[in-house]
């Protein structure tokens, strides 16, 4: 009896010890591994290959953060999360950083205890329909059944769009993307609605990808970005500037192949970017050569894009809005100085 009581008391004390959430950077360094929450299975973005190694666009972002913090892009533990569970996992401290196809919105930034650190992919919500249905516009979707993933902005955008167009529709929602795609493929729905990145990725996994088309309308703005917990500015900076360094590297023509040679460049902005001049490492709490590690081990933004989802990948997505600001897109890194 007495020992039971002692146990309870100990438990009570343990529970009331406040945990510190502010030093994610120190924790990651101490543990020697970055815990990163990603999509469970979205081709091109986050998917384990046949050897169980995680690959994809958002996966590479996590690897870049690991390269910046730990000097090794392989020291990442990936936690696959459904859209429903992703923010809770970040809030509760189960993961250090969330690199999901998560849309940056005002309410998520202000009411979930998390902060988005930037936009690694500018996306928009679209519709995929069967060619056989002869639909050319989203306005022809009267009475359609639409498969969506639960707990995403997709559900909200659908309701907004169809209400403004006075079109009647039915949603069929599932918790994970695979069930949604399966339901569409098996004919439970007429339409699959998601961010176009996800639609294109899903199409790759379908048995008959050519039977479906993506309609031209985009009904929303979906800036997808990484998120961290609120109250840890240092870690937010790491997440933010890792992304900017990748974008700035592309802008300055620094690639994983030429990064070592570029260190002796005369261009002052390249010298600052690679930590040859200035103090890009010390101020943020990382090693001086962290941008070099990021670019060398993972690549610049353009390399990561082309390799995973762009021209060198099966997805073959256009750069579009994700081209650099000086090439017709909106990817733009603040100056590094």
């Amino acid at each position, binding site marked *: 009896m007495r020992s039971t009581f002692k146990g309870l*008391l100990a438990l009570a004390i343990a529970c009331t010890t406040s945990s510190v959430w502010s030093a994610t950077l120190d924790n990651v360094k101490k543990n020697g591994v970055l815990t990163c929450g990603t999509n469970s299975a979205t081709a091109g973005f986050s998917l384990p290959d046949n050897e169980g190694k995680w690959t994809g666009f958002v996966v590479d972002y996590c690897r870049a953060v690991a390269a910046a913090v730990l000097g090794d892009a392989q020291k990442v533990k990936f936690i696959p999360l459904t859209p429903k569970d992703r923010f809770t996992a970040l809030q509760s401290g189960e993961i250090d950083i969330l690199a999901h196809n998560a849309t940056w919105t005002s309410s998520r930034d202000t*009411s979930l205890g998390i902060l988005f650190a930037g936009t690694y992919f500018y996306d928009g919500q679209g519709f995929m329909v069967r060619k056989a249905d002869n639909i050319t516009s989203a306005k022809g979707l009267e009475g359609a059944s639409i498969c969506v993933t639960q707990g995403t902005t997709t*559900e909200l955008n659908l309701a907004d769009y169809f209400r403004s167009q006075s079109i009647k529709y039915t*949603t069929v*929602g599932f918790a994970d993307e695979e069930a949604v795609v399966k339901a569409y493929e*098996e*004919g*439970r729905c007429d339409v699959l609605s998601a961010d176009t990145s996800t639609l294109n990725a899903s199409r790759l996994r379908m048995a008959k990808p050519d039977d479906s088309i993506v309609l031209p309308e985009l009904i929303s703005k979906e800036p997808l970005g990484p998120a961290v917990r609120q109250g840890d500015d240092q870690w937010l900076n790491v997440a933010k500037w890792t992304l900017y360094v990748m974008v700035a590297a592309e802008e300055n023509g620094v690639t994983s192949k030429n990064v070592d040679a570029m260190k002796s460049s005369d261009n002052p902005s390249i010298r600052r970017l690679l930590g040859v001049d200035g103090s890009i490492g010390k101020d943020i709490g990382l090693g001086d050569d962290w941008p070099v590690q990021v670019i060398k081990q993972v690549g610049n933004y353009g390399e990561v894009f082309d390799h995973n989802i762009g021209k060198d990948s099966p997805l073959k997505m256009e750069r579009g809005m994700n081209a650099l600001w000086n090439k017709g897109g909106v990817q733009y890194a603040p100056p590094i100085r």
Partner: protein
Amino acid sequence: MSDLSLPAPSRRSLSLHDTKVRGIFYQLLLAGSLLALALGIGMQTASNMRVRGIPLSFDFWNESAGFDINQTLIPYDALSTYGQAFWVGVVNTLYVSFLAILLATLLGFVIGVARLSSNWIVSKVATAYVELVRNVPLLLQLLFWYNAVLKPLPAPKASIAIPGGIYLNNRGLIIPEIQLHSGAGLVGLAFVTALSCCVALWFRARSVQRRTGKQLPVLLVSLATLIGFPLVVFLAAGEPVSFVAPQLRGFNFQGGHQLYPEFAALLIGLSVYTASYIAEIVRSGIQAVPKGQTEAAYALGLAPGKTLRLVVVPQALRIIIPPLTSQYLNLIKNSSLAVFIGYPDLVQIFAGTVLNQTGAAVQVMAITLSVYLIISLATSSAMNACNRHFAIVER
């Protein structure tokens, strides 16, 4: 020195060596530490949430939800609040659980009695059903009904047409819409009148039988009244109820009422699965009634059907009801597996989409848990009342 003013028992009751006092002391200690633990966890959660900037408020309840739900029994649209979305979830959970309990009980009783049948085939089929269904995980069964039975149904354009304007496709079962015209109330009134007549007849038949032993043809007369009288009124009032057949337009049938495959899969899965357990409970309940009871009933000249209905089942019910209660509670809790097949129950809507849109994980989960607790406690107390009703009244 002797202190005679203090009575001996009261002094003993204050002693820590008294087992009773010690017992109470430990009970209080345990209750106190559990309370402290709960308080500690609650306060820690609150402070952690404050540290992480997550508001611990219920303000989201009255905010607009902004998403649609495909199956609702109460008014709801995207402009409704999260609170209304919650009620849609609660009602959907109750709806599917209630229907599944009815079906599972009916099916369970039939299978349970069939297992005891003297007909070899009937009893073996019933045994096979129980053993097959009871030993496969419920989630797999739900996925089977949904993915292997209902989703492969033909697309809307190739719907299976059932006479009477009913269509079956992979979007569900679409039945004609019932339209009421003036005079429809009369038909309803006729039905209610017929029903009251039947009840009166039933009481009269019972008293006649008690007095004279004669039996009146209650069932036949009741059926004739229940169908015949409203039918006559229906024709006389100029057929005021009409059915509008659903029409295939665009992607799916328009008009008519739709029964979604997600709902059907959940209802069938829950009923079939729970029925296998209920069948076993019914079988063991019936077998627990001494064989002498049946023999005595036969000796009195009761037919087998009547023996079962009037002698065996009332006694078996006393044994059946307590374990039946736990099956009902299991069924209600199992209905949360809806989330895997896309039926919008409480977990899918509230602990799913609402939790995700608001980020109020702690509040939403606390509310969801409380709802299941309340539903289960209510079911349990209803069944306990039922049990008291059937319990042996000592005379």
